């Protein structure tokens, strides 16, 4: 780990001059971004603006061509793989709920639970009392005690979403990246999700990538608009929607 020895910034996540090209196409173009500890940030932008690529860079799935990505002031994320980054405390929720279908609800949470990750220790490990307590706590938060021994494959779509939120709580990341959480949801579900995210934000920093403007409004947080791989505007939703450049990007020329 080639970490800077001095804490260079107070930001939790700090992207500076990040560029990613795929076959000449610049998915991210000199992108800079700052997320403060405890903050919740919404990132919006039209298709192809680089939202998902930005997440891929932060979680280690994609290596940037140039630029700096610093987490918690110390760790240079561009040199780490997914597993190390996750262990540092960055969690990611995908657009489609991905739970482990052939495991029970409880085992899903156990797999996500922060702590043991090495394969040889897991061969002999049994859940400790603390771990079981934590699992019970999470099960009651997501209201799934009754389903804890049910296979995740048999859960409804909504229950899978809840389970995945439980898994994120179990993972207990410092920073949570959420990719289009309300895609395909009804209005009521969208509202509930916004509440849940605000609840999670009380103890975790959150970055939400979203298309849905009404959802972003419901979140009521600072918004960053991406366009063609760089930041176009930043501010409250009202500020950025008043920005003529944002209007142009969203409504077309």
């Amino acid at each position: 780990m080639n970490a800077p020895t001095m804490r260079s910034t107070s930001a939790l996540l700090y992207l500076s001059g990040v560029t990613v090209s795929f076959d000449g196409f610049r998915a991210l173009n000199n992108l800079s971004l700052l997320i403060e500890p405890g903050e919740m940030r919404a990132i919006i932008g039209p298709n192809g603006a680089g939202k998902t690529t930005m997440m891929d860079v932060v979680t280690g799935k994609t290596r940037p061509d140039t630029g700096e990505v610093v987490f918690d002031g110390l760790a240079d994320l561009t040199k780490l793989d997914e597993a190390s980054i996750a262990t540092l405390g960055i969690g990611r929720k995908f657009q489609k709920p991905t739970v482990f279908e052939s495991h029970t609800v409880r085992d899903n949470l156990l797999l996500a639970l922060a702590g043991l990750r090495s394969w040889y220790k897991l061969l002999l490990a049994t859940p400790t009392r603390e771990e079981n307590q934590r699992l019970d706590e999470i099960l009651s938060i997501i209201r799934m005690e009754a389903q804890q021994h049910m296979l995740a494959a048999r859960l409804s779509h909504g229950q899978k979403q809840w389970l995945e939120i439980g898994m994120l709580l179990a993972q207990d990341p410092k920073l949570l990246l959420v990719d289009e959480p309300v895609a395909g949801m009804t209005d009521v579900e969208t509202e509930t999700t916004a509440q849940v995210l605000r609840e999670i934000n009380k103890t975790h920093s959150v970055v939400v990538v979203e298309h849905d403007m009404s959802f972003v409004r419901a979140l009521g947080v600072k918004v960053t608009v991406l366009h063609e791989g760089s930041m176009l505007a930043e501010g409250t939703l009202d500020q950025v929607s008043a920005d003529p450049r944002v209007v142009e990007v969203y409504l077309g020329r």
Partner: protein
Amino acid sequence: MITRFLWQGMDRNLRLCVLLVLAVGIALPLANLILAATNPAHVPSWVLQLFGKYLCYALLALAVDLVWGFCGILSLGHGAFFALGGYCMGMYLMRQIGTRGVYGNPILPDFMVFLNYKELPWFWHGFDHFWFAAIMVVLVPSVLAFALGWFAFRSRVTGVYLSIITQAMTFALMLAFFRNDMGLGGNNGLTDFKDILGYSVQASETRAALFFASAVALALGLIISAAVVSSRFGKALTAVRDAESRMRFLGYRVEGFKLFVFVLSAAMAGVAGALYVPQVGIINPGEFAPGNSIEAVLWVAVGGRGTLVGPIIGAVLVNFGKTWLTGALPEVWLFALGALFIVVTLLLPKGIVGLWGQMKSRSQARKARAPA
């Protein structure tokens, strides 16, 4: 610690399976040795030899299932690990022949005398000791699996690409072992075995002991696999199978899990091969043929991928069918194999064991729907 580890997979069903395997391992040899040939319960020697082979195939199938069924690594080259284990045992058996070979050379096996070898190649040293050969039976396949897995899993080679690599590996080994200057008997392989641990390989008592040893190996394989699969490691392993990238984003270093189970599986296949060779009396490069590895995958598919009993049932049933059909209608076997593959893929995605589960859950669903 190790007993606790091994014990953790022991649920009621598994205990039953292990007992059943051991019971077969004791009953069949006894029925062969003690009962008179006129007794209707007498087991002829050829049947014992045949079922001894099936037990080795069952262990190979279990090894394939461990990586394919539980970790999603479709290996089309497990026959190579089986054959390497077999060759290690074959080398030991060759060294036991001593002066009884056709040429009577106390050091060099017949084929080396025939090919004008002046001295034993370096890699044959040590194989006159059983303990050395026994270590190599496990070590050689493990090292190969480790080397292959290390590069493949780190470079994130998955799915069909990995299958092709394993297939290419066994094919390359087959070509290499066919060469006379490999020093391993070339085309003809290793055969004409006389003794194992001082006992004649032809003696019915030795055959009975080998059969029992195969049953014990299979039972041990079952216990170890069950322990691995039911541990928290095993839970992570099936999670890797179902959603690998999700596991990475949860902070698991997926390569380690895959590598461990791949090496363990190769070692099991090697032991199966080592027990197979003294029972059939020959090992030659044909065992590396890609078709063999594919057949092993088919046994697993027929029996039930991702279950521990499935591969054993599949291996025994398919091979029993093969023995019977190649005797009765030799030209039909390959078509039957192809048809079996299609039937299993279309109708029995979870194999025979899965069919039982399907029927059970269906009857439960019916009961649940019926008015109380």
